[in-house]
Every structure is written in C-alpha cells, then in structure tokens.
C-alpha cells in the first residue's frame, strides 16, 4: 500500500511539472501582459520612453524568452520562492494563504459542501425509492431549477429578497464596518454575512449530486442482490440503507476527486455578487491584470490538490469496494 502511494506521488510530480509548463506558456502568451497594461496607463498621462519600457519589462522578468522565464520560475520555486505579486509587490504566499482570502473561500465551500451532502443524498434516495411518485417529481423539478439558475442571477435574487427587502441579512461584505464587535458577537455577525453566499452555493450544487445519487440508487435497487436481500426477509428500510446504500456510495466516492480542489478554489461569481474577499474574486482580478506569480501559484496549488484528490478517491475506492485491489 505504501509503495503504491509513493509510486502515485512520484507520478503526480511529473503531472504537476507538465501542468506548470502549460500554465506558464499560456500566461506568457496572453495578449496583454502586466507591463503592457501598465504602459497603456502611463501613456495616457504622458509619453513613455523606450528605456522605461525595457526597464519595466526587466523588472518584472518579462524580457526573457518563455523557456528561460519558465526555468527561472521553476528554479525559484525549487528554492520555495514563489515571487511577489506584480500588483502590490507583496509575497504571493502571504497574499493567497491569507485568512481573508483562502480562509473565507474555504469556510464558504466547506459549510456548503456539508449541507450539500446532507441534503442531496437523502433527497436522491427518497426520489429513487419513490420513483415516478409525486415526491420524485417535486424533488426532481426543484433540483433541476437549482441546476439551471446561473449563480449571478440567483445570488442577486436572494440578495434582493432577503437583504434588501426583508433585511434579514446584510447585503454584502464580510463584516459590519460600523460596529466594532468582539468574540461571540463578531462570530454571529460573520455567520450572518456568510449565510446568503452559502445558501446560493448549496442550492446551485445540490442538483447534480442529487441526480447522481438518484441514478445510482435506482440502478442498485433493480439489481439481483437487492432482490436476494428482500427474499431473506429484511425490512425495506434495511434493504435500502444497508444493502443498497453501500453500493451507491461507490460512485459517490469517486466524485471526491473533484471535491478537494473545489473546497479551495473559491466561488468566483458568488463571491463577486456578495462582495466577499475570497480567493475566487482575487484570482479573477489577478487573471485580468496578468499577475503571473499569483496565477501560477494559485493554479499550481489547485493542480496539487486535484492530484491529491484523485489519489484519495482511488484509495477510498479500495476501501468501499472490495473488488478493487490497489497495487
């Protein structure tokens, strides 16, 4: 087992290298680099000399060829130097792994994932066990509406309804700037601010997981071994929650692979709608202004998590399905 994990980690390293090459080349090929944008801005306020342009390019390391630039970046990363953000010249690691940035995104994602599972799986099971009943139709329609709504639209509707009209929750932001709260009150205020974004994410993401649970459950419920379990004299409850559910878990576990990076990737649009300082909106901003160190670090971090996620889901697969042997 240990050998298997080590082997997989070794392969992962190669994958990450490949990802970094592609990422770097793409970023360098972007039509307007950070320096280009800066020059445009400077041009409006007066002429810019060729000399200054060359200086700027040199300062940001954009005057080298792509290949040389990549190896420079790689060399620095090997020395654990991820560079400074172009925008404010602060170390990238500090910028990204910040309580307000990735912390906020993680809390939103983690809480909504928990609720997503808690709601979607039971819904999927009831829909499957009562196939073609009123209950099934109601759940399916509700969930499909959730899948179909775009997050910027649904987020705005929730905001308008609960924050602007009913005033149950604050409109946006992370905390109330007019009050200086401490301890428990601060926490409650924080939760109040987080409620609507979390609700948006949960409602929008329940759909796919519920559909998946329902499909898997239906497939399992029609299988021969469920008939055997019924023939033994087990109650329907036991048949569903013991025999069928264990088998439905198998495909659910594979979906774990995508779950780990999504916990840290942030919800770009939802965060923008509610003015949260999450990593999603920050990465979007870095992307538009061509902040190479930030984007590289952020995306490599996600790539690393994806690789770990896939490994974890493979390991979990071996646990929930005795037919799978890892070697």
């Amino acid at each position, binding site marked *: 087992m240990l050998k298997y994990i080590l082997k997989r980690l070794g392969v992962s390293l190669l994958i990450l290298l490949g990802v970094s090459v592609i990422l770097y080349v793409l970023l360098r090929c972007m039509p307007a680099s950070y320096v280009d944008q800066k020059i445009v801005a400077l041009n409006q306020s007066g002429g810019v000399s060729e000399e200054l342009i060359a200086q700027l390019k040199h300062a940001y390391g954009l005057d080298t060829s792509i290949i040389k630039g990549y190896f420079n970046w790689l060399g620095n990363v090997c020395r654990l130097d991820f560079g400074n953000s172009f925008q404010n010249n602060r170390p990238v690691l500090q910028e990204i792994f910040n309580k307000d940035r990735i912390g906020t995104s993680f809390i939103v994602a983690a809480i909504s994932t928990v609720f997503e599972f808690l709601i979607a799986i039971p819904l999927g099971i009831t829909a499957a066990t009562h196939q*073609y009943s009123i209950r099934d139709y109601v759940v399916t329609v509700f969930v499909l509406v959730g899948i179909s709504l775009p997050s910027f639209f649904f987020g705005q509707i929730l905001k308008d309804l609960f924050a602007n009209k009913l005033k149950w929750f604050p409109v946006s932001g992370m905390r109330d700037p007019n009050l200086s709260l401490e301890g428990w009150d601060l926490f409650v205020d924080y939760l109040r601010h987080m409620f609507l974004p979390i609700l948006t994410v949960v409602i929008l993401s329940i759909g796919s997981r519920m559909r998946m649970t329902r499909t898997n459950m239906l497939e399992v419920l*029609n*299988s*021969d*071994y469920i*008939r*055997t*379990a*019924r*023939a*033994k*004299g*087990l*109650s*329907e409850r036991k048949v569903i929650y013991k*025999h069928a559910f*264990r*088998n439905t878990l*198998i495909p659910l576990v594979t979906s774990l692979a995508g779950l780990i990076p999504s916990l840290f990737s942030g919800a770009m649009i939802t965060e923008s709608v509610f003015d949260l300082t999450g990593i999603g909106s920050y990465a979007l901003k870095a992307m538009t202004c061509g902040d190479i160190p930030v984007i590289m670090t952020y995306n490599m971090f996600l790539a690393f998590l994806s690789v770990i996620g896939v490994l974890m889901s493979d390991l979990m697969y071996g646990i*929930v*399905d*005795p*037919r799978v042997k890892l070697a």
Partner: protein
Amino acid sequence: MEEKKNKHYLSGKEVRAIAKANAKEMRRLEKEKNRKCPKSEYTTEMKDPNNILEIEDLHSYFFTDQGVVKAVNGVSFEIPVNSTVGVVGESGCGKSVTSMSVMRLLQGPTGQIVSGSIRFKADDYKRDEHGKLIPVYEKDEKGEVIYDDVLDKKGNVVLDKDGRPKQKPRQKKRENGIGVYEMEERVFDIAKMPIREMYQLRGRQMAMVFQEPMTSLNPVFTIGDQLDEVSFLHVPGATKEIAKNRSIEMLNLVGIAMPERVYASYPHELSGGMRQRVMIAMALAGEPRLIIADEPTTALDVTIQAQILDLFNDLKRRINGSILLITHDLGVIAEMADYVVVMYAGRIIERGTASEIFHNPLHPYTKGLQKSKPTMKSSSDTLFNIPGNVPNPVNMPDYCYFKERCAECVAKCSGDYPGMIRVSPTHYVACHLYEGKEMKDE
C-alpha cells in the same frame, strides 16, 4: 378491427389512456400492499391440510406503457407437504413471475398481484399476549420443569434477597445451541398480506434460490455477513457467535470444502458453482418449509448441475420441506419432481404427476416440448421444434393461446379458451381434444 390487428404502434392518445388507467390501478394496489390490517384479514384455511402451498386463480400483471401484460393469468396448483413440484415452460411463460408472486417479490409499482389467492401453511412462533415468544422448557421424567441456578458473568451463583440461589427454568436447546420455542401452524393468504407482514415469512418460512448466482450476492459484503444476516433475522436470541456457527454449519451442509475461508471471502472471489451453493446455504439458514428454486442450475455447467440437484434432493429429505422447482429443462424435472406443472403464456395447460406427464403427455404443447428434447437414441440430424412463437402478451386472444402453433387443431379451438379437464385423479389438461374424456367421479 382488421386494421387494428396489424398495427404495431400506439398513438399518443392510446398511450396516454393506458398510462392513466395503469397509474390508477397501480396506486390502488400499492396502497393495498402498504395497508395496515388485523391478522384475521389474511388468515385462512387450507383446502387440503396435506398441502403446504395452494395457489388458486392467481393473476399477476405488469402495467407497462404498451398495455397490461398478463404474465400470470389464472394459475392454480398446489404443493403437497414434503414433495417437489416442477414448473416447466419456455421463456416468458410466467414461471418466474409465479414464483416471485409467492414471495411477493414482484418489482412494484409496475408488477402486481391483481387477484387470486396463495394459501401458505406457516409454522410460526407462538406469541403470548405481549407479543413475546414462548420458550419450551426442559422437563424431567416426572414431567416437571427443570430449574437452573442463575449465574453471573464470573460463574458465581446469583442470590436473591432472601439469600437463596436465584433460579430460572432451563430452556430446551437443539444440538447447535439454538433455543426451542413453541410453534403454531397458521395459514396465510399471501396474496392479501400487507408487504410488511411478508418480512416474517420470507427467509424463515419460504426461501428462494435465484437463477443468477453471479449477480445475486451483494458485492460489498462478505459471504459471512450476508449469511449471518439470515440468522440474526430469523433465529430468536441469535448472537454473533451463534450466527457464525450456524452459517458455517450451512456452508458445510451445501458441500463447501473450506467453510471458514469462504465465510470470510467476498462474492467476487468465488466461482459460479460456489456462489450458487452459498445462495442455497442462505436459503436454508432460516430453515424454511418451502424452498423456491428459480432455475437454480441454468447458469451452471453440467457437472455442477448434477451436484446441486443432488444437494436439493438431499436437503428436502433432511429438512423435511417442499420444493417448488422452476426450470425450462425437462431433464431436471424428470430427475427431481414428484408433480409437474406445464405453463404456456401465463396459464397452466397441463399438470399431473411426473410419470403422467412424461409417459402420457396429453396437451400438444407438452408433446412438442418432449419431442424437442435431444436424446441419444434419436437418429435424425435435426431437432423437432414447435413452429411459431408465443403470442404477444399484451393482447392475448380469447381462444386457446396455442392454437396457431398446434398440429392437432380442431374446429372447436377457435372457440372459448378450454377449461381444465381432469383425466385422472392427478392429471389435468386444458385442451379441447380431451373434452368428453373426463374421469367420472363415482
């Protein structure tokens, strides 16, 4: 009318009408299945006390979008105690649906028992007024109940308030350590039972061996887990240890060489024959009085087939039970069955003792079935086959279903569906050819 016959598709209007009618009927039947009712509503009497199962005029339908499929359409037969009844017929004739109906395992809401009765003589635990089981106590020669001292965990005698050793009556136990309780015989009409009550019968009173050993075991639990479950459900007061001992005893019984190892393995680690043995062990663990074997040997090769059949014969003697054997293999029936039921398109066309059916087949279909069986003696290169196919199950004709394929058709065959004609005390046939040849009751 002529036009309609050739139509192979349904218009949207017809489909909607069918779906609406089906939905209504299915809802009614599902409600009935989940209703709560007193035991008296489905307790009846057997017509003949020597039978363990009596099926009378059973109708099991599937409500599909193409129309109602009458998979079982008025089937009646009985299984005498301690005998094997074989049901034969080609694929799709309703054999499996009949057996599933007995277990109430038809996949709802589309599959439903619509009418008829299935009377089953159950040997259930007797319960006192609190719903508890009544243990049988051991008695000495004088007929007095034997009392034992109550021991605590360390093996010391527990004393009551007065300082006398506490005593309790000694429950009678079988060799395998399972306590004996008082039993009573009860006759249930399975077709009218709420599905919740069926949990008591399934596995304990009647058990089923399915035709697909490869997929009939849950892949994520060990054989041991799945076998123990039956003991936990049906042996009162079963502990982990009792269940395990019993499971291993069952695995031994079905001739598995290394029961301890099989006990700990997962289904995918076993061969098809082993899995079928495990299935049989599982069916036996609850000590049922009736085993329903739905094509138990179809998926197995011939050598294993013979072993499994021997096993069934051996078990029938040992547990003193009855077997309902469903198969399309006449050879298997000849070897195993005491009585044979021949089904065609959801109805019984002939039934009788095994020797009657094999030595004196009456219905043209039964004769055809026997002729189409390959034998060593025949010198011809081609096998006989019955021309044509089973009629479309959705729109069954109202005359004899076999008319179009029958070689001995007479004018009367275009008339009503023939009734059951009794030609000997045990031999019945549904064919116009034998009208007037009924056995007279003196």
